[in-house]
């Protein structure tokens, strides 16, 4: 004759309760991921094929001796403006709207603004950049530059983890979307360089303590702590139930 030590209903109840607890516990951890990506067509190749003839391989422009002279485009920081130029063809420049597909136009514009647009990226003081970043940027992008939520328009400040230094510099100057622009009157070239240096640093900070949990802060730490508690609870089950055969 078998009588369960625990009443029959206990097991169902316990299983259901476990599920109730576990599902909300584990699911939010999946959130803390960084997103980002670059346009797939090769912007550099398109630029060298289509644009370099006039603008030069570095976008420095070709001197006006030749009839097809193109201006220096190294100060174009705004991908929107670059795209507009490629599409409409201002002045002597032809329109590429029938030549290049939309992703290609985007790719070449990003190439121009990220790789050719020259804000003299040298020098800069890392620590000063950190201070400036906390003053001017961290209120939206958070101190680890992993993005922050803004209740204005539903557009969040993006994570800067995957942005190249020239793009960061350009974005500071041009102010994409709802982001304010920081003209040289607010941030000098030197200060801008410091900020870019800090952003580049904080994209891959040393993390001496181990896994950074995506720099999500106390929320992610809380979930990790609960996993620790869960592991310990499993240990207690093992302690009391294990080894009894």
């Amino acid at each position, binding site marked *: 004759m078998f009588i369960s030590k625990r009443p*029959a209903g206990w097991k169902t109840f316990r299983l259901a309760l476990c599920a109730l607890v576990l599902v909300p516990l584990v699911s939010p951890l999946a959130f803390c991921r960084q997103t980002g990506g670059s346009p797939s067509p090769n912007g550099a190749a398109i630029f060298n094929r289509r644009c370099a003839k006039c603008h030069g391989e570095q976008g420095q422009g070709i001197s006006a001796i030749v009839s097809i002279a193109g201006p220096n485009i190294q100060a174009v920081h705004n991908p929107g403006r670059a795209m507009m130029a490629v599409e409409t063809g201002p002045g002597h420049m032809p329109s590429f709207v029938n030549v290049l597909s939309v992703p290609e136009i985007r790719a070449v514009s990003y190439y121009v603004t990220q790789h050719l647009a020259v804000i003299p990226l040298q020098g800069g003081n890392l620590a000063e950049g950190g201070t400036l970043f*906390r003053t001017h940027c961290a209120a939206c992008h958070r101190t680890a530059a992993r993005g922050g939520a803004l209740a204005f328009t539903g557009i969040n400040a993006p994570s800067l983890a995957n942005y190249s230094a020239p793009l960061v510099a350009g974005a500071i100057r041009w102010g994409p979307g709802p982001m304010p622009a920081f003209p040289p009157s607010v941030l000098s070239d030197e200060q801008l360089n410091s900020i870019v240096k800090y952003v580049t640093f904080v994209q891959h900070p040393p993390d001496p303590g181990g896994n950074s949990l995506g720099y999500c802060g106390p929320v992610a730490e809380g979930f990790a702590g609960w996993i620790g508690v869960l592991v310990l609870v499993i240990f207690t089950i093992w302690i009391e139930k294990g080894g009894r055969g």
Partner: protein
Amino acid sequence: MIRRIGRWFDSRLHLAQPAREALNHVFPDHWSFMLGEIALYSFVVLIITGSFLAMFFNGSTAHLIYHGPYRALDGVEMSAAYQSVLHLCFGVPAGLLIRQMHHWAALIFIGAIVVHVARIFFTGAFRRPREINWWIGLTLLVLALSNGYFGYSILGDLLSGAGMRIGYSMMLSIPIIGPWLAFLFFGGRVPVDVTIPRMYGLHIFVVPAAISVLLALHLGIIWRQKHTNYPGPGRTDHTITGSRIWPTYTAKSIGLFFLVFAVIAALGALVQIDPVWIYGPYDPIAILPGAQPDWYLAWVEGAMRLFPGVNIYLGPYLIPEVFFPGILFPVLFFIVLYLYPFFDKFITHDNQPHHVLRHPYEQPFQTALGCAVFMFLFVLFVAAGDDVIAVATGTSVVTIRLILRILVFVAPAVTGIIVYGLCILSRHRHARGLERALESASAEGRLISGENEVTQ
């Protein structure tokens, strides 16, 4: 040898009989009775690591310029407290590990207390004669929560500064006495230099001492009253069944201590917690979004985020909107918890002493209520991270907040109903199982009694 040592002590302290009783003390075998021990041992880890940290931390807001191995802050002005934390992280051998272990131990300590309280609550272990220990335990939880807040606030980084400022605003919002209370506790209008030394004193001495005393009392009362046990054959209110303290239980318990230490050390080794060097020094002009408290206070933070912005005046006097979610809600919550044994007595009409627990499904209403409250707290906890979730999922924080404002009412209600149904179902199944067992037993002509061999 043992005998000789024993004799030495016994001749001075007359210990033989108490020692024998202690060694033979019976403690019931069930994993859920070890949850409190996880909390106890996390506290031991907190004391050990905290003592180490206290030798290095400098609870001062004096301003100085940092020069050290973390070059991203080289030459930056900061408080002496923050500087000492940076030195601890980057300049002291094993300093970072100990600091991370301390923080993880704090998270696990309170997590284990919560799980322990849940076990007590759902099994009705707070009933007579254990009301005193329920109250002491809740006081321990309150002390642990406040000490967590103090520890979080004294580091002098941007996150802790934001936390301190929000705490000050909450205290300030209490009607009538708020301003005096806030100035008494924080020593002035935050940020003010005296707060960190004061919180440091509370964090490393006053509160831990209070926790230690209450913990001793808590354990002493358990020893005196002996432990509860789950219902089952042979389990009565007049006996206690389990293993003796020596040697099995001792081995298990010390083993658990090592495992708690190991899990905390593993977290401290592998997962970075509270990277203050990323947050930067506190600057009252700077701020960061995603400034959350640690998880154990996140439910209050979440309530503050979800509570609507309403102005309430009593005559000419303002009751700030922060007061309701930030002060009134947690205070009421704990008052309800403190009074729960009376409430239970009232609804069950049962004032007898109990040593056998009741299964959660035997009290469907209480279990459903408890689960609903936990779900409510969980939604608030999620709400405290609504901006982090918004960034991670690429949605608007306004949308997420709207969803959470609905969920905070719907999710507990649904949970309560489901759990209630499950309890009723389990109760029926249990009753049927018992009936069948009785039938088969009577068919075999045997009686069920505690003497029967029990097989699982």
